[in-house]
């Protein structure tokens, strides 16, 4: 199939199948309504109405340029300076896409971990304590406790507990990425957004990261962009398939990988795309 960057072409012909989560155990924590994202005049997300279940992992998959990362970054207003985002992003009854929202406070609740591990050029301890100090936590005992809890939740504590004052830049890729997760969860967010967090990691680190995410979903709601189909299959409860700026299919991950309703989804997850 020819993949055009111009999403106004062909999309009307594409079927859509969107089944929103409806699990009383995991009520919706975040939803988007009529979300559109424009880079200049170019529309990158033409239709992004999704509901995300709390304490579950939702995977966003799709080919390069399909809009999944743009969508993810919109969820905590990371696109504010580079794109125009219209529509509502509802979080606990509040539209966090409104201009008067305190973006920094909102990002404390909706944290982000990026594709490449990006620890600060500081000690392991200070990587985590940095944001806390900015928020006025100065008590050493309180800081110690949060640093330890965050590192434990990110499954890094046992490896670094004796080296907390060493530079974070000396960590391996997998460890650095888990440090970034520890840093994100230190400020106690509700939601963790992850943009291909394992794409720069080797298989062992990837497996450890996935184990960490499965543990973390007990405390956080996780939305992850991944190019790794098996990863989406392994860790997520729900999967949204993006193509040409639209969500073509959204369903439980098991449905998406065994019996998708839209042919393009089937082609994509089977590696039969193009």
């Amino acid at each position, binding site marked *: 199939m020819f993949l055009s960057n111009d999403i106004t072409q062909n999309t009307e012909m594409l079927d859509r199948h969107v089944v929103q989560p409806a699990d009383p155990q995991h009520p919706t924590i975040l939803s988007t309504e009529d979300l559109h994202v424009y880079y200049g005049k170019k529309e990158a997300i033409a239709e992004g109405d999704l509901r995300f279940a709390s304490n579950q992992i939702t995977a966003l998959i799709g080919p390069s340029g399909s809009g999944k990362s743009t969508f993810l970054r919109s969820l905590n207003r990371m696109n504010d300076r580079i794109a125009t985002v219209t529509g509502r992003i509802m979080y606990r009854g509040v539209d966090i896409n409104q201009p008067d929202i305190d973006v920094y406070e909102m990002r404390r609740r909706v944290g982000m971990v990026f594709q490449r591990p990006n620890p600060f050029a500081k000690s392991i301890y200070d990587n985590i304590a940095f944001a806390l100090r900015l928020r006025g936590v100065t008590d050493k005992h309180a800081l110690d406790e949060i640093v330890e809890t965050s590192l434990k939740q990110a499954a890094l504590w046992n490896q670094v507990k004796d080296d907390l004052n060493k530079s974070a830049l000396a960590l391996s890729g997998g460890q650095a990425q888990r440090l970034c997760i520890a840093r994100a969860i230190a400020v106690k967010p509700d939601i963790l957004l992850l943009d291909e967090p394992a794409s720069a990691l080797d298989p062992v680190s990837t497996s450890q990261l996935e184990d960490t995410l499965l543990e973390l979903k007990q405390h956080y709601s996780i939305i992850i962009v991944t190019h790794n189909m*098996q990863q989406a*299959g392994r860790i997520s409860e729900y999967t949204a398939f993006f193509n040409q700026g639209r969500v073509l299919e959204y369903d439980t991950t098991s449905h998406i*990988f*065994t*019996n998708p309703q839209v042919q393009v989804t*089937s082609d994509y997850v*089977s*590696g*039969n795309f193009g």
Partner: protein
Amino acid sequence: MRRLFDDELAELDADFTEMGMLVSEVVQQAVDAFMNRDAVAAQKLIDHDHEINQREISLEQKTFEMIALYQPVTTDLREIVTILKAVSELERAADHARNVAHSAIKFGSKQKIPVLEQLIGEMSQITTQMIREVLAAYVNKDDQAARVLAEVDRKLDQLNHQIRADSYQQMRLDPAFETGASIYLNVAQDLSRIGDYVTNVCEWIVYLKSGQIVELNPANADNAN
């Protein structure tokens, strides 16, 4: 890599269809051997049964390999799972065909019982036709045909019940018929089981097409209720 997978899947599909045709032939030969009381043909069939078992093992190994190497999903996964499951059903159907061949030898020159002979003939015809049609349904990925075929299995079950009743009746009428009638019972049971296995293959064809796991076997459905 995708092209490689497609080639291997096509090969797997062809091997499975070939095994299906072999099982279809074996079932036909088994019922012919019984109807004609042809001990030589029956023994030949029994001697070649291991070939079907080997094909089953080889197809299973191939499916395991493809799952491990390519981690297929959606329709690819369903096709491989269908073959993996259906291949066992076919092998079991062939085992029952082998039993029918044994019955042909065991019956020897005992006196035939016309009413049972006719009913067995009817069952044989339905069974061999079912197994031919299930292969066609698989090749054409025709889930509707598979559902229709599963309905035919009911007729096979009815005939089996009738043969059971008539056999007991014959045994009561004349104890001399006892051994012969019990062989008819066994053959009817074997043919009925072959019908059940064909129905199971039909269920996998429905799964292949729709992703839905269904119960088409009336006997199992009754148990479920």
